[in-house]
Structures are given as C-alpha cells and as structure tokens.
C-alpha cells in the first residue's frame, strides 16, 4: 500500500509524508461496532436506530406542541395559512396535512452524482402538532434504507415545501433514488419553493436572500450558536473519521431550525396569499418591499390583494424613484394611467435636486404619455426637453457607450417630432 503512496508522492514531486494525518484518522474509538447497538451519546439528543427491509439508519423525531412559537409566528398558524398556498398550484386545494417540508444536508455542492445527502430533515403537521424528523446515515451504505423510508413517507403528501428545492434538494433526491436503484419516478411533487417568492420580494431590501438572513430580518428568528450550513459537510466527514455523535449535534440543531423557519415562511406566504396581511403580519416598512409584495401577489393571481400595498407605497414619503417607476410600469401595463402619471411626476419631483437615470426615465415616460395619450404636444415637449437637458449633462460625465448614444439620439428625434407636430397644430 505505502508503495502506491510513495510512487504518487514521487510523481507529484512531494517528499513530505502525511503519516501524522493518517494516524489521526485511524482513531475510531467511538465507532459503533455493531449496527444495532447505539452509543448512549446519541440518546442525549434523542436519536434512535431505525430499521426497515433495506437496512438501518438513525432517526430523530422532535414534536412541537400547538402552542409553540418560532419568532413572530405560532407554528399552528400553519393550519390557517395553508389554504393560501393553493395559489402556487391553482387547480389544487392545499391543506396543512398535505405539505411535507424538506431540507437536505449534503456532502458537497451541486447535484452531481457524487453529492450524498447524509441528513434529511422532514417536517409535517400531525393532528395538533408539528413534527420534525431528521434521518442520518452513519455511513453511505445506509443511504438506501434512508431513501426507502423517505420514498414511503412521500406517498402521503402532495406538496414539497423547500428553500431552493426545485433546483437543488429535489433533483438531488431523484439522483439518489436512481443511484440506489429505487426507481426513476417515485413521486411527482407540487413544489412550494419559497426561495422564489423570497427573491421576488426581498431582492433589494435584504442584503441577501439566504434563509438565515430572511428569517432574522422578517420572521423574528434569532439563532444562537448556530453551526453555519456550509460547515455541515466538514463536520460530517469528521464524524465519519471519529465516530463521535456529539460532532453532529450542531448540524442537527441547524437543520431543525431550518425546518422551523421553512414552516414560518409557509405561514408568512400563506397569510399573504390569504389576504391576512394586517392580522398576522406587519405591513412592510419599505415602499419597495410593499410594491414587490404587491407585484408578487399579482403574479400569484391575487390582484385584489395588491392594491392595498400599492396604495401604501404610493403614499409613502420615503419611496425611492426606482420604486415609483416600478409601480408606474405596472400601472402603465394595467392601464391605470392616472396613478402612473402621478408616480412619474413624483419620481421627477423626488429627485429634483439630483436628476438621475430614474428621473430621466420618468420624464421620457411623461413625454410619451402627453404625446400619445393626451396629444398635448406642448407639455410633452417640455418633459422631453427636460429629459434631454439632463441626459446631456448626465452623460457628459461618463463615456458614451452605444446604448447611451442611442438613447440621446432617440430623445433628439422625439423632440424634433414633437416640434413638427406642434407646428402643424399651430398652422
């Protein structure tokens, strides 16, 4: 054996040997010699051995009573909120009992064939309780038994609630079913992937849309001594080397909190979609978030719920020009010209002292509106002239690229055309 290592070292031009590291790896004092007898350490955090026809793995079950609160929300709000989630798949009626929450801890990144989920976190409502199950494989050979358990579980649910599960967790689970010869199409989930609404709503308002950020800023959840998810693979490798259950305690805790946060996100989005915005969640502080929330509700087919948010954003004094433009674009599309014009005017006024790209865009929109809708060429011309002046000053500072040049050119054309139209009228 060391023959091969020596040869490799020579070929790589290495001389130092890794003997020290190897010696360390061989300390297996905690390893469970027989797979049906567990080290008592596991018991201290509620982990039990589970066996089925495919073999065995470890299972930890945690039950949350009806009264349990996690941050802003009580876990049992799920029952009420769940119906709102129907908006994700309008032809089905969602209910809390049909939703399975899932979050994987894996050995690597991406969804290649060599990335193994060593822990599967599952969450579901059972009677008046919220149950979290966490499977763990003590070594990769236990994966098949764990997956068989999951496959059986899936049959009882229609919805899979995840954070990025559409592109990561679920395709990875499918990989593993194939790799373990458990079939190709075991279950077809209706995805409730909360990363997508989170991105739609908080793209600009939060520093990132990572779950830990979202839960802290919007769900009132504060983790203490959390092991970051990115550490999980390393800790699992360490556990494989030393066999010490306590190594994984932090990973269990992290995954458990992720599952609870996932449930709270379901609650939050469910309430939103149900129109229970004042009752259960605060109106967003930032106008941008109001508008984005409204836009998302519209996208989800809840147009009637967005007006309230749009209206609040419209009235907010702190709205940034970019937010006003975003809403105006929506109004223009929806034919609500009254408010669109108001918003564009606000966008110009709000940035009076510091005319930027947003104000320019707003003036151009106004020029278009006056020209085409009202045929008021004089007002149109004054907006166009305003835009041109500022565009010219604005672009002077930067180097003109082809896009900016085209923009200026089209403004010039617009002004010329408006002048012609105006002259024609005067004749």
């Amino acid at each position, binding site marked *: 054996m060391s023959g091969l290592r020596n040869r490799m070292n020579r070929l790589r031009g290495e001389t130092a040997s890794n003997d020290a590291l190897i010696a360390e790896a061989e300390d297996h004092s905690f390893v469970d010699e027989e797979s049906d007898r567990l080290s008592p350490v596991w018991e201290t955090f509620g982990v039990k051995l589970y066996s089925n026809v495919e073999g065995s793995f470890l299972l930890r079950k945690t039950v949350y009573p009806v009264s349990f609160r996690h941050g802003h929300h009580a876990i049992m709000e799920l029952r009420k909120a769940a119906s709102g989630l129907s908006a994700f798949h309008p032809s089905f009626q969602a209910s809390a009992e049909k939703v399975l929450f899932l979050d994987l801890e894996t050995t690597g990144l991406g969804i290649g*064939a060599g990335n193994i989920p060593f822990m599967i976190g599952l969450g579901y409502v059972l009677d008046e309780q919220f149950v979290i199950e966490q499977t763990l494989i003590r070594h*990769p050979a236990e994966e098949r038994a764990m997956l068989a358990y999951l496959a059986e579980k899936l049959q009882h649910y229609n919805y899979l609630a995840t954070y990025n599960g559409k592109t990561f967790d679920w395709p990875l689970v499918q990989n593993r079913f194939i790799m373990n010869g458990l079939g190709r199409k075991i279950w077809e989930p209706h995805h409730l992937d909360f990363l997508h609404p989170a991105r739609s709503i908080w793209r600009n308002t939060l520093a990132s849309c990572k779950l830990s950020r979202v839960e802290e800023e919007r769900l009132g959840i504060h983790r203490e001594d959390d092991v970051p998810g990115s550490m999980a693979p*390393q800790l699992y490798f360490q556990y494989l080397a030393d066999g010490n259950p306590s190594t994984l305690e932090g990973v269990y805790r992290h995954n458990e909190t992720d599952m609870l946060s996932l449930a709270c996100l379901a609650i939050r989005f469910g309430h939103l979609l149900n129109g229970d915005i004042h009752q259960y969640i605060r109106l967003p502080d930032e106008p941008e978030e109001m508008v984005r929330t409204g836009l998302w509700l519209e996208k989800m087919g809840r147009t009637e719920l967005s007006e309230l948010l749009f209206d609040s954003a419209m009235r907010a004094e702190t709205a940034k020009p970019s937010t006003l433009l975003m809403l105006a674009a929506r109004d223009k599309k929806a034919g609500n010209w009254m408010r669109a014009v108001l918003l564009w005017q606000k966008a110009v006024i709000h940035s009076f002292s510091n005319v930027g790209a947003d104000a320019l865009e707003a003036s151009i929109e106004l020029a278009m509106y006056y020209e085409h809708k009202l045929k008021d060429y004089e007002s149109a011309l004054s907006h166009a002239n305003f835009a041109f002046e500022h565009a010219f000053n604005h672009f002077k500072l930067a180097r003109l690229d082809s896009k900016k040049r085209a923009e200026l050119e089209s403004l010039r054309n617009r002004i010329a055309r408006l002048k012609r139209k105006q002259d024609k009228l005067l004749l």
Partner: protein
Amino acid sequence: MNRFTGKTSGLEEWLQHVRQNAEIMDNVTHWRTIAPREARTAPLPDGLHHAWKEALRSRGISELYTHQAAAYRAAREGNHVVAVTPTASGKTLCYNLPVMQSLLENEEGRALYLFPTKALAQDQVAELQALADLMDVGLKTHTYDGDTPPTVRSAIRNAGHIVVTNPDMLHSAILPHHTKWVKLFENIKYIVIDEVHAYRGVFGSHVANVIRRLKRICRFYGSTPQFICASATIDNPKEHAERLIGEKVTLVDNNGAPMGEKHFVFYNPPIVNKQLGIRRSSVLETRKLAGLLLKQGIQTIVFARSRVRVELLLTYLQELIRDKLNNKSIRGYRGGYLPKLRREIERGLRSGEIRGVVSTNALELGIDIGQLQACVLNGYPGTIASTWQQSGRAGRRQEGSVTFMVASSNPLDQYMIQNPDFFFNRPPERALIHPDNLLVLIDHVKCAAYELPFDAGEQFGSESLEDMMEFLVEEKVLHKAGSRWFWMAQSFPAHNISLRTAAQENFVIIDNTNGSRVLGEVDRFSAPTLIHEEAIYIHEGVQYQVEKLDYSEKKAYVREVSVDYYTDANLAVELKVLYVDKERVSGDLIRQYGELAINAKPTIFKKIKLRTHENIGSGPIHLPEEELHTSGYWFSFSEEAAARKSKNEMQYALLGIANVLVHIAPLYLMCDPFDIRVVPQVKAVHTQKPTIYFYDRYPGGIGLSERLFEVHDDLIRQAKSLIRSCTCLSGCPACVGPIEEVGLLGKKQALELLNEAEGLG
C-alpha cells in the same frame, strides 16, 4: 500552354512543364507517382431498412466501398470495430450505416458520438441530421458541448437519439451527471469514436480512462454498447483502439475508395552556405511553389506547422496573386479563428470560390472541405501519418493531384527528404498511450468514485483497486463502508482535471516596441532558457530584449534592441535514476529503461559577443526549479570508448549525437518533438560512464522512451545515416548541430562514437 498568359490547361500539363524546369527540378530530391486506384465496391447489404436505402440512393449511393461493407458486417455481427481509412474515403458511412440501421430498427435505441474537437462534432451533426431528415422518421441528432444553450440541454438529454460530443464534455459534464442521462445510458447501443489516432500521448491516456468510466456507467444502467472507431492510417490501429476502449476489436482496413493519380514531390531548398549547411528558407520556397500553383488556377492547400507561419505565408501569397485574384480567394485557417469564420472558409473551399488556403494541422482532421488538387507542405509535418493525412486533402477521384513537401533545415526534415524510401516503405508511426500512468489513473479513479461507489472486486486499470482505494481513503476523499468505497469530499473532481494538459500551453511573446503586438510563442519547456528576463530573443533576424517574464500568466514582454551580443542560458539539470525496470547488455553497450527524477533549474545567462564569441557578461535567472518524475531510457558507452577520447571530445561527440537523436526519435513515435527530451552526460552518476538519456516529458511517462528502448538499434542506424549523408563539412543545424556548439570535429567525433553504440541484436 498559353503563350501569353503562361497558363496551362490543367494539372497534368503543368506538371509536364515543371518536370522540364531545371530551376525547380534541381531541388527535387524525389518524385513519386502513385498509380490511380479503381473503386472496389460491394452491393448495399441485405436487410438494410428501406428508408435508409432510399436516403442513400437520393445521395447517389447505390453501392458501398468494400471497407464500408466490411465495417457494417463486422458491426452487425456484434463486434467492436476499428476502421482505418485515408482522407476522403467515405469514412463516416462505416459507422453511420450500422448506427442508423439500428436506430431505424429500434427507435428507443441511442448512440453517442465522440469527436476530438467541437468543430468536427458540429460538422458531423449537420451531416447526420440531413440524412435523418431525408428519411423523415423523426431521428434526432444533437451536439452537446459547451456551446449548447442551457434551455435545450434537458431536451437533448431525454430525446436525442444520437448525441455528439467531445471527450472533455463527457468527462466533466455528462458522466458526473449521469443520472440526468438515464434515457441515453439505458438504451445506448453504439459508441462511435472518430479520429482515434488523435487520442494519443497524455491526452489519449486521459481519454482511455474517460472511456473506462463511460463503460462503468453503461454497466450500471445495464447496457453493453458496441464501439465503432475510425482512424487515420497509423502503424497500430487495432492495438491502439484496443488499448483505448479496453476491448478486442475487429480491424477493417480494406479501403475500396478510388483515387486519382497522385504525385508526391520531395523538394529540398538549395544550399546557400555550404560550410554552415544553411539552406534557403522553406517559407520562401513554399511561397514560390504555392504561388505557381495558384497562378495556374489550381485549388491548393498549404500546411504550415505554426500559427505564425500560417499568417506569414498567407500574407506572402495574398501579395503574390493580388492582381490576379481577389484577396478573399486565399484564406488562412487555424485554431483561434472564430467558428463562424471557419464555417465560411470551409464552405468557400467546397464551392471552389476559395482557391487557396493556408492552414495549420487544424484542417488535417476530417472537416469537410471537399477535395483539392494540390497540397504544399511547409516542412515535414512531424509524422508519416500526418503527412499522408495532409496530403490526402489533395486528390479527387477522377483527376490527378500533387503534393509538394518542402523540407526545412531541421534534421528530421533533412532525414526524410534524403530518405524517401523510409517515408514510402515504412508503416506510419505507432500511436502510444499509457492509460495506467499512475497520475492519470488516480485522477480518473477519483472521478469514477464520484460517479458511482466502487465495489470490492471491481477492476479499473492495471493497479490493484484495493491499493488505490486505500490511498484515496488516506487522502480523505473516499470513505469505506462495508465492501464499497464512496466519494466523500465536497469537491467536484472532474473540475480540477483537464484532459489536455497544461504542458501544452505556450508562452506568448508580446512586443511592446510600438504599442503591443504578439510576436510569437515559445513552448513551456524552452521558456526558462529562451525568454528569461534580459534574454535577447531573435525573431526573423530582429533582436528583442525580454523586459519582463510573467511566469504565471505565461507572457513575455519584449522590446526591440540593437546589441552586438546574444544570450545563452545555463540550465542545471540533475538527473537521478530511481529504478531500472529493463536492461539489455550487448557487448560493451548497456541500455536500460526505468524511472527517472529530473530537476531542472536555469541558473545564469551569459552575454556572448557576436562573431568573436567572447563572454562579455552574465546575470542570474530567478525562476522556479521544475521537478519531473518520469520514465526514461538510456545507454552508456564502455570505459574503453571513454578512454579513447578526451573529456572535451567526448562532450562534443555526445552533444552531437543527442542533437541528432532528439530530432529523429519522432520517427518511431507519434508525438510532438517536445514530448521527449535527450540529455547527454560525460560521466553519469548512475553508470559512471558516458551516457545518453531519453525521457518522457510527462510525470510518470507515457510510453515514449519505452518504445525507443525497443527500437534502439534502428534508432542508432538512422542517426548514423543522417550524419553521414549530410552535406555539411563538420556539423550543421541539420545534423549534429552548428560548430559553435559541437566543435570543429563534432561530426567526426559523433560518428566514431556512434559506431560503438549499436548493440549486437
């Protein structure tokens, strides 16, 4: 000939004129006429699907060439096949026939095609899809490579009947995500590998391992596909294909394609300085010959060995014919041109709109450019196999064609040009791969473990699986559970492993004299001694000084200077023999093959005055030492031989021999001259005798010096004959090296010593 325009009525008539033109014929060392060959055909096989038959008929194919029929038969009998065919002999039908037939019989079936480059893959898909469309049966053919848009990838994975890709993509995108390709792997019937001769050396060794992984994945999905390979003419197609795919293959080499009469002309530029053995530039002579052809309106392809030469010749030729043809009718073609431009040039060549093209060996591979009439090779392409491939670009079925090979002053070129029999009578080179090179193997074992856990008792390459597994467990990338080993690391191994090694990357030389322009390239191994900082780099007779060498970015910045010295760097090479694996003793000569450790570090450079050759200064070179563990072969001379010469004489003699050997070694190998190194030592540490070492320039070796160990006697004989037949007086760059390097008696010393080097069997 038309007296006013100087134009002849065709190639035949023009060749008659050339034969009477003393100015040209004086430099022609050999003119071989290869008789035309009639087509040998066989009827379309029985049982061919009627739609397929119709499609072939509509393409004007109502019978097959013998090799196509044989390949079809062999494949249908369930054999793995390698078909050896020269350029333009209807090679693609050898594999398309059985593959299409099988897909027509079972539309659930799938096939995977591998081509060494993206351009070839795209070419092939166009052809295949056109055939499939003719049949109107909904067969789908797709390329899957780095250019495939993400939006269509999933459709290709599920619905493509034939997926056309390259080994790199298979390695880094398809195999590690095999679960997304279930449809393909469960139903795969054929794997087609075209241009197998291109998979040699390190690249080939990697590809052989990618194929091991591919077979492993197919097994997992319960399929055992058949391989159909196609190769250019090489010495060992069967052996090579068998090593590459790890299966027994049936060889098909009864080429039945017709060929017109072919003239092969060896042209050696005239000597302009006999003492120094300097000949007129091969570039200028190439320009002359290609110019004559183009002026006759003969469609011509010119091959040059480097990108820089391609551009140079292109400029020359465009100038030459400026008033006769428009500039667009003569084009360049090389790697680095954008795909769109390449397609345009290929089309122009097929339609005849483009009359001339200057290309690197990029056009040697099977890209469809139709058949041209004449070919001019600027320099010996490096291998017999490439020479035939390139020459095959000229040659239509009905008309005659001509190939001129213009030799450069490099010893290998000079050897070839003076020994036409060697070229015409010898089989082409052997393609060598060494899939069990430990470094390469371990890389792919990692990738394979990522793709599927290893089971005890599995086999992957010649190393013991248990040993490799245990090693990777210690490296903390695998974990053993029960009797299986699982990938257990966060990394994605294929990302860090490139099939085409970095060693092939060149240093770019950038001239900052006026703005900045790329002057040329230097290979990685020569960089430390040629373009270290302060070196004088000579390019087309102009001196440049290196101002900065960016070693990690592989760039050297130079500025034009005018000085009266050149620089010469000392490279301290330390060479240790680690193991002796094979040994042969005959008489006084001992030759051995084994493992070597080489440490090379440039130390100082000297400034040497032009003409007087005085040493007028020196400076240090600060570059990292490179260490290489590889396989090598060496032979040493007896102590008596050593005693007959002074140390100085011995030094010159060994250096002279080394200079010759390094150039003629590629005669026996299909490799780049830079893949193999020769180092002479007057008193070697290992043998205590005068010794010449050869080694592979890749860690672990790729089988080159092992082959040289086998052909030692031949090699020495060829070296002797090269030195003897060289017309110089006492050594020149075309044989033992210039007298500045090997002394005034270098040639004689080298010959004397070589007489002792031949073993007695």
